[in-house]
């Protein structure tokens, strides 16, 4: 395949940045999208040009490190991660525009690399159960109905990639935040801190500068792990009931 790539290049956080166009040839449909980027970078390196920087690690669709806004979609046209996207999803001669995630809370570091530290800080605000190592009950002393466990699991599969933020017109992190709040709200282990967790995580999410939710559903449509909007509804419930019931005046 022969393609034209329009890629956002930006030297560092303070650089203004611009699109640069690269023609590329000899791409096989079996390649993954990132392997196509590798080919481009090998070519650039040989020519002595700075390779295009992008985040990636596992290349298995699970670590959540890869990003890229491809032709107007986070992780490209398929509902999967960029590393699991294959070139057979594109056609010969196509122009592909590649941009970084765009959000105030995800500042660009270089080229297509952004800083998603805000997600870590949201988790740090309360995305855990307060238990120390040791001294916990036997695992089977906490029976959990399979249906509940499965539903909590669905929420727990979020890979923290940020595609939901990238897709949302408001750069809202509600899907990400609600997935964690939901997981722990459903499980018995999460009950003790259920209220404070919702309050703190939502407050942190707002502090990071993410937008609000207009319920457009773009996040759900683009989330590579199929995290559902029901999580956001649950988070809202959790948050309202925590606000009303908790002792934090």
């Amino acid at each position, binding site marked *: 395949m022969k393609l034209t790539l329009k890629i956002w290049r930006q030297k560092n956080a303070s650089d203004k940045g611009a*699109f640069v166009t690269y023609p590329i040839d000899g791409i096989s449909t079996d390649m993954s999208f990132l392997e196509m980027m590798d080919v481009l970078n090998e070519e650039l390196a040989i020519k002595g040009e700075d390779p295009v920087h992008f985040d990636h690690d596992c290349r298995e669709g699970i670590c959540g490190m890869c990003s890229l806004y491809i*032709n*107007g979609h986070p992780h490209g046209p398929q509902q999967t991660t960029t590393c699991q996207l294959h070139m057979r999803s594109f056609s010969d001669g196509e122009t592909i*525009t590649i941009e970084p995630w765009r959000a105030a809370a995800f500042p660009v570091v270089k080229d297509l690399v952004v800083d998603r530290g805000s997600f870590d800080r949201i988790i740090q605000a309360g995305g855990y159960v307060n238990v120390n190592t040791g001294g916990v009950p036997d695992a089977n002393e906490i029976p959990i109905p399979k249906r509940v466990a499965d539903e909590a699991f669905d929420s727990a599969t979020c890979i923290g990639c940020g595609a939901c933020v990238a897709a949302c017109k408001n*750069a809202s992190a509600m899907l990400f935040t609600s997935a964690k709040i939901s997981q722990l709200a459903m499980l018995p282990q999460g009950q003790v801190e259920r209220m404070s967790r919702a309050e703190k995580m939502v407050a942190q999410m707002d502090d990071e*500068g993410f937008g*609000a939710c207009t319920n457009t559903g*773009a996040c759900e449509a683009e989330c590579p792990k199929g995290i559902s909007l029901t999580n956001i509804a649950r988070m809202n419930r959790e948050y309202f009931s925590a606000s009303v019931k908790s002792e934090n*005046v």
Partner: protein
Amino acid sequence: MSWVTKTLSSTIGRKLIMALTGLFLILFLTGHVAGNLQLLKSDGGEAFNIYAKFMTTNPAVKLLSYLTYISIIGHVIFSIWLSKTNRAARPVGYGVSTPPSTTISSRNMGILGTIILIFIVVHMQSFWYQMHWGDIPFVTYDGVEYKDLYSIVVFAFQNVWMVIGYVVAMAFLAFHLSHGFASAFQTLGLNHAKYSPAIALIGKIYCIVVPILFASMPVYIYFTQS
């Protein structure tokens, strides 16, 4: 900050206000459209004028109307606040954005709302202001005096532009509600495998039926009363 202001100024709390005010406005619209159906009676406006008097004098209705004013103002103020936050959350936009799989309405609630707001201002100035403080002729039914709002309405809808304006505005309202109705329930956290499809369906019906009923009135008057 007290917990109330803290909650209501969070992004989720602000949406709570949007949803509650929006739903109240939907309730209001339901009553409003039901009442206005009196316009379609061919009784020279009697039923309508009696209804209009009831609406402006009954204390319970008065209370509701204040709530409606507050809702509109609250809805608008919070929508502006939210929109500002949302815009600030993405200072640099994308070069390419192919329309995602979301609806046009959901992506343009602010624009739709703004047009509705303009409509509301015009609408209030034409009728509500007239009814309260305008120079309105009186009619008498069964010995009781009524303001003849009906004649004002009929006069207004002789103007084809006015009619078109109303129809267009109602189209925008339809789009606003095509997303807003179900969205408000989602915001309130009412998302349930059993009930959400029903809510979505009612929303779809509502957003078509109510605006059409509203729009039918000026059209009807334009064609029947000229």
